[in-house]
């Protein structure tokens, strides 16, 4: 066990679950945005996309 992991455990930090692996195909999606427009990942092919999840609108950070 790495020292960092031990320190994190001692501080009561929760292990975060694994994310999708780097290099894997990003799952396609078709989700409405805040203006009611449909946003499809397939339509963004050829562009680099940053997708960030935040817990709640209008909260700090």
């Amino acid at each position: 066990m790495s020292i960092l992991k031990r320190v994190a455990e001692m501080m009561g930090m929760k292990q975060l679950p694994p994310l999708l692996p780097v290099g894997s195909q990003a799952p396609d999606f078709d989700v409405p945005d805040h203006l009611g427009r449909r946003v499809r990942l397939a339509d963004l092919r050829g562009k680099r996309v940053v997708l960030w999840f935040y817990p709640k609108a209008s909260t700090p950070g």
Partner: protein
Amino acid sequence: MLGASFDDAAANKKFADEQGYTYPLLCDTDRKLGLAYKACDSASDSWPRRVTYVIGKDGKIEQAIHTQDVAGQAAALLAKS
């Protein structure tokens, strides 16, 4: 750039207006996006974890990050891009 939360369009529109965001904020009210991208564990979760992905031009995941320091993370991502 795409933001995503489980909020409805009205809450996210308010957020976009307040913050001056000009890019889409996705309203993942059924949690399908959150589940597909492992930002939550169940369709009944109240909110997603702070997770950021960079998806390449070929549609493959380039980076997947549990965001801790939001401002620092954004700077780091920009530095790598």
